[in-house]
C-alpha cells in the first residue's frame, strides 16, 4: 500500500479507479485534498461500499413478521417473544487472518461483538466458520493454530461463550483461509439502540481505546487480492479484549440510561465510516475536530486519525446536556471519553483540525451516491466439464469398514474437540447444547425460551453448482436447527468470493444469491444482516464460492435438549427422507477418489419442507430420543456420528435396502432432506402417523443397542460394516487431533 502524502494529493496514491476519481471531482465540484481523497478511498472500497454486491443483495427477502431491523443496521434484530429480541450478524476477517492469524482472528471476534452490543444487546454466543488448506502442510497448521488461539484469546476474555462452528479443509484455501465469525445477542425490545445520528447540535462523543496507527487502510487491503502478505502486517489491527469487555459493560450501562441518540462501532474505515454512516442514516451532517480525538501516538495526521482502524472504539451521539452522564459512566470503567464534535444540519461530513477545516464532503457522496457496479457475469468455461461425472469410472470400495473409518478420520469430518476445548463454551451458564452437534442451544434465563444457532456452508457444492450450493446452505442450516427442536426464524450470511472483477466469479456470486434467496422464500426465513468478502484470491487463484449461512432458531418452551447421539437401547432407528444415487461433490468422492466433480445433490424445496415440518412436530411433542442431519459423508457417517455422540456409547444394527442405487452412493452419497432419528417403540406409531400425514418418505433401518455399529445390505461377503464404537471413536477423534500437540 503506497503511503499517502498529506500535503500532495495525487491520484496514484489512492485505490480509486480513474473513473471513480472523476466522480469524486464531480461530487465535490472541485479537486479533493489528500485527506478527502483518503476518505473517499476507504469509503468507496469494496469492503465499505458493497459496490459490486449491492445490486445482487437486493434480491434477498428481508422482511418477515418477526423482523424488527433488517440489513443496513449494525446487526439484524428479530422478535423472539416475551418482549425479547435476538440480535445477530456474521462477518469475515479473512485477509487479516492470513497476514497475521492471531490478531486477524481476534479482532474479527472483537468487531462482531461490537456490532451486537452497539445495538444495546448483550452478546450471549459466538460461533465461527473456518476454511484452511490441508493440515499436512506446516503453514496451514500454523494458520489454524493461531486463528483458533486468536478466537479463544478474545472470546474467552470477553466472557462470551463460543458454542459452535465448523471447519473444512481444501487446497484452495491454502493461500486464502476464511475466518467468519458469528455473534448472537439478546435484549429487551425497548432497549435496542440504532446507529443513526440525530438532533442538530447534539454532541458527538468518542469512547473506548485511544487511536493509533494500526489498521490504517485495513478496508482497502481487504478489497484487493493478496500478494506479498508480510508487507501488509501493519494493516492488521491489534486486539485488546480486556478493553472491549469494559467497553461492553460501559455501553450497556450507558444505553440503559437513555442518554444516547445513536451509536456505532468504529470498524472498517474507523472514524470515517462511523461518522458518515450515522449522519447518513439520520439525514444530518456531522462535524468532527480531530484535535480532540484521544491518541496513543504522537504526530498523527488528520488523515491517519480519520482512517485508523484501532479497535475497541465507538462513536455516539448523545442528547444535549447529557455529556457529564456519559463521561461519568466511561470514567467508571476507566475508558477514554471525549466530545469531538456535533451534529449539524448541512448533511456534510466536516473534519476540522482545531480551527482549520481539513475535509468537507457531502455525506451522500460517501454513502448513497457512492459508485455501484453491475459487473459483467459469465458462466465459467469449466463449469460443464466439472459437472460431468461418469460413475462407471469410480470403483466401489474394496473394504466398506475401512472406507467409513477413513471418512470419519478425514480432517474435515473428524472431531474438532481439539479446537473447541480451547474455547470457553460454558461461561454465562446458558449453554444447554454445546459444540460438536447439529446446532448449539442457549437458554434465556428468566424465560422458558431457548435459541438454537448454527453456521453452515458447503463450497464444493457451490463450485459445482452455485445455485444448489447456496440453496443447500440455507436448507441444511434450517435442518440442523430442526434437529435440536428449534424453529428457524432468520439468518445472516457471509458471502466469501474471489475477485468480483472476473465475470466468472461474479456469475457464481449472483447465482449463489439466487439459490439462497429462493430457499429463504420457500422456507420463510428472512435475511436480516450479512457481510460480503470479495478478493479472496492470491496470485490469480481464487477460492471456491463460499457463502456461509448463520441461522437462528427458536425453542419456545425448552424442557430437555434434543441431540444427535443415540440414547437408549432397543429403540427404532428411522431414516426420514429419500436417498438418491448422488455422489457428485461428496466428501467420499473427494477423500477416497480425489475428485471434486459431478452435480451436487438436488434440493427439492417441497420435500425439504415436509421433512423439516415432520421432525419439528415430533421434536416439539417430545417423542424423539435423538435427531441428526444426514449430510457430509452421507448415511454411514451420520449413523457413526449418532454412535460417537451417544452419551452411553450406544451402537446400532441397521439393514439397508439400496435397491438400484450403488451401495457406495447409498452409504456415502449426500442426498439432501434426510434426518436420522431414534425413537422409543412406544412413540413409533405417533411418529409414523406424523410422517404419513405429511406424506414424508421414511424407512425403519433397525434398532439401537450393543457396543458396535453394524450396517448390512445385500448378501455379498463384503456388503457389511461391523465396527466397535471404540474403533469408530478412535478414527473420529484422531483424524484432526493427530496434527497437533495435545491440549489436555
Amino acid at each position, binding site marked *: 500500500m503506497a503511503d499517502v502524502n498529506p500535503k500532495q494529493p495525487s491520484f496514484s496514491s489512492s485505490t480509486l479507479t480513474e473513473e471513480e476519481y472523476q466522480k469524486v471531482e464531480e461530487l465535490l465540484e472541485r479537486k479533493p485534498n489528500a485527506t478527502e481523497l483518503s476518505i473517499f478511498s476507504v469509503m468507496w472500497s469494496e469492503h465499505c461500499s458493497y459496490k459490486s454486491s449491492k445490486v445482487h443483495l437486493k434480491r434477498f427477502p428481508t422482511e418477515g413478521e418477526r423482523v424488527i431491523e433488517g440489513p443496513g443496521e449494525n446487526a439484524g434484530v428479530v422478535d423472539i417473544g416475551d418482549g425479547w429480541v435476538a440480535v445477530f450478524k456474521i462477518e469475515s476477517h479473512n485477509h487479516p487472518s492470513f497476514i497475521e492469524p492471531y490478531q486477524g482472528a481476534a479482532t474479527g471476534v472483537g468487531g462482531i461483538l461490537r456490532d451486537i452490543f452497539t445495538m444495546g444487546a448483550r452478546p450471549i454466543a459466538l460461533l465461527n466458520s473456518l476454511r484452511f488448506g490441508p493440515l499436512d502442510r506446516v503453514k496451514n497448521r500454523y494458520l489454524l493454530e493461531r486463528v483458533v488461539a486468536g478466537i479463544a484469546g478474545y472470546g474467552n476474555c470477553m466472557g462470551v461463550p463460543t458454542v459452535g462452528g465448523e471447519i473444512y479443509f481444501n487446497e484452495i484455501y491454502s493461500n486464502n483461509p476464511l475466518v467468519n465469525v458469528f455473534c448472537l445477542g439478546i435484549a429487551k425490545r425497548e432497549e435496542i439502540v440504532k446507529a443513526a445520528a440525530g438532533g442538530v447540535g447534539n454532541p458527538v462523543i468518542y469512547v473506548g481505546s485511544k487511536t493509533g496507527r494500526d489498521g490504517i487502510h485495513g478496508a482497502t487491503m481487504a478489497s484487493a487480492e493478496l500478494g506479498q502478505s508480510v508487507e501488509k502486517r501493519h494493516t492488521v489491527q491489534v486486539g485488546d479484549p*480486556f478493553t472491549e469487555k469494559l467497553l461492553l459493560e460501559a455501553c450497556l450501562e450507558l444505553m440503559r440510561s437513555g442518554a444516547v441518540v445513536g451509536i456505532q462501532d468504529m470498524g472498517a474505515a474507523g472514524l470515517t465510516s462511523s461518522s458518515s454512516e450515522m449522519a447518513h442514516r439520520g439525514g444530518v451532517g456531522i462535524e468532527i475536530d480531530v484535535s480532540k480525538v484521544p491518541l496513543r501516538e504522537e504526530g498523527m495526521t488528520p488523515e491517519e486519525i480519520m482512517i485508523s482502524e484501532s479497535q475497541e472504539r465507538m462513536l455516539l451521539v448523545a442528547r444535549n446536556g447529557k455529556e457529564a452522564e456519559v463521561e461519568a459512566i466511561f470514567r467508571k470503567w476507566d475508558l477514554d471519553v471525549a466530545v469531538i464534535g456535533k451534529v449539524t444540519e448541512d448533511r456534510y461530513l466536516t473534519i476540522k483540525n482545531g480551527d482549520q477545516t481539513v475535509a468537507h464532503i457531502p455525506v451522500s457522496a460517501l454513502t448513497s451516491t457512492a459508485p455501484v457496479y453491475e459487473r459483467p457475469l459469465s458462466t465459467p468455461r469449466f463449469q460443464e466439464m466439472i459437472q460431468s461425472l461418469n460413475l462407471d469410472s469410480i470403483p466401489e470400495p474394496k473394504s466398506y469398514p475401512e472406507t467409513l473409518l477413513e471418512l470419519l478420520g478425514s480432517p474435515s469430518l473428524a472431531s474438532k474437540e481439539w479446537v473447541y476445548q480451547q474455547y*470457553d463454551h460454558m461461561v454465562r451458564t446458558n449453554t444447554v447444547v454445546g459444540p460438536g452437534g447439529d446446532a448449539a442451544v442457549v437458554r434465556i434465563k428468566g424465560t422458558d425460551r431457548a435459541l438454537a444457532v448454527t453456521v453452515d456452508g458447503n463450497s464444493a457444492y457451490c463450485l459445482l453448482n452455485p445455485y444448489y450450493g447456496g440453496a443447500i446452505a440455507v436448507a441444511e442450516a434450517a435442518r440442523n436447527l430442526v434437529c435440536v427442536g428449534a424453529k428457524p426464524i432468520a439468518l445472516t450470511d457471509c458471502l466469501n468470493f474471489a475477485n468480483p472483477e472476473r465475470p466468472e466469479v461474479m456469475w457464481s456470486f449472483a447465482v449463489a444469491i439466487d439459490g439462497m434467496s429462493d430457499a429463504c422464500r420457500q422456507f420463510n426465513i428472512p435475511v436480516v444482516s450479512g457481510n460480503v468478502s470479495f478478493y479472496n484470491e492470491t496470485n490469480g487463484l481464487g477460492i471456491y464460492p463460499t457463502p456461509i449461512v448463520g441461522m437462528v432458531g427458536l425453542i419456545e418452551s*425448552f424442557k430437555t435438549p434434543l441431540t444427535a447421539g443415540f440414547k437408549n437401547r432397543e429403540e427404532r432407528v428411522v431414516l426420514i427422507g429419500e436417498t438418491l444415487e448422488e455422489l457428485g461433490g461428496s466428501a467420499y468422492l473427494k477423500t477416497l477418489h480425489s475428485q471434486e466433480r459431478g452435480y451436487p445433490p438436488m434440493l427439492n424445496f417441497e420435500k425439504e419442507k415436509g421433512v423439516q415440518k415432520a421432525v419439528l412436530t415430533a421434536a416439539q411433542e417430545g417423542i424423539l430420543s435423538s435427531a441428526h442431519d444426514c449430510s457430509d459423508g452421507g448415511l454411514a457417517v451420520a449413523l457413526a456420528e449418532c454412535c460417537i455422540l451417544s452419551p452411553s456409547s450406544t451402537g446400532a444394527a441397521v439393514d439397508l435396502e439400496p435397491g438400484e442405487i450403488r451401495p457406495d452412493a447409498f452409504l456415502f452419497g449426500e442426498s439432501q432432506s434426510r434426518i436420522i432419528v431414534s425413537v422409543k417403540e412406544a412413540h413409533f406409531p405417533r411418529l409414523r402417523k406424523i410422517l404419513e400425514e405429511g406424506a414424508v418418505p421414511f424407512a425403519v433401518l433397525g434398532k439401537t443397542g450393543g457396543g458396535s455399529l453394524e450396517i448390512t445390505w445385500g448378501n455379498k461377503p463384503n456388503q457389511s460394516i461391523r465396527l466397535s464404537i471404540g474403533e469408530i471413536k478412535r478414527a473420529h477423534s484422531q483424524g484432526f487431533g493427530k496434527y497437533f500437540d*495435545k491440549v489436555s
Partner: protein
Amino acid sequence: MRFGIIVFPGSNCDHDCRYITRDILGEPTTLIWHKETSLADVDVVIIPGGFSYGDYLRAGAIARFSPIMKAVVDFASNGGLTLGICNGFQILVEAGLLPGALLRNRSLKFLCKPVHVRVENNQSPFTSLYTPGEPLSLPIAHAEGNYYVDDATLARLKERNQIVFRYCDEKGEVPAAANPNGSVWNIAGVSNEAGNVLGMMPHPERAADSILGGEDGLKLFQSLQAAKVGAYGRR
C-alpha cells in the same frame, strides 16, 4: 446467608455465581465493584472467574491491588468465608491468602471441558454436604490452572488437611492421566490453614443447575448456605 460477589474489570462469572446464590438458592446477593473499600455486611465473599485486568501481566497479579482487596484480606483473615473460583483462586493466591502459585497449563493452551474432582476433605464449610472421596463432575475453563507448591509446602498442606479437591477419574481414582493441567498432586482446590478460604480451578457454578446437565457443584453453595458464620477461627 448474605453473599457478596466481587466484580473486577474483566470478571466474567460474576453473573453466573449470582444466578446460583440469588436465583437458585434464594439468598440475598450483592455485586461489589472493585473500587469499593468496604464489604458492608456480607457473610460470604465470592471472587468469581474471568480475566481481571485482562490477565495481561499474570492472572490475578493486578487485581490484588484493587481497592476492595484490603477489605477482602481483612475479612478472610478474620475468619470470613471466602471462595475464589478460577481467576478468583488466582487472585487469592496473588493476595497471599492461599499458598502456592498457578502456572500456565502443561499444554500452554486454554482448556474448557468437564473433569472429575474428588472431595478430599468434607470437614470444610465449603464441602460439608459432600461425602469424602466422592467424585464430582465439574467443568474447568482456564489457561493458568497448573497448581504449584514445593514439596515441603505440599507435605504441610496434606498434614493440615488443606487439600480440598483433586482431579480424578469418574470412579474417584487419582491417576496422572486424570490431571488436565499438570497440577502438583492433581490438586484442584486448596484452603487456608484455618479452613475459611477456598480456592479452586473448577467452576461449581457451572454445574449447579439441572438444565445444564449436572448439579454436582450445587452442594458447595448449599454447604456455604448451611455454614455457621463466625465458626471459623482467626489466624
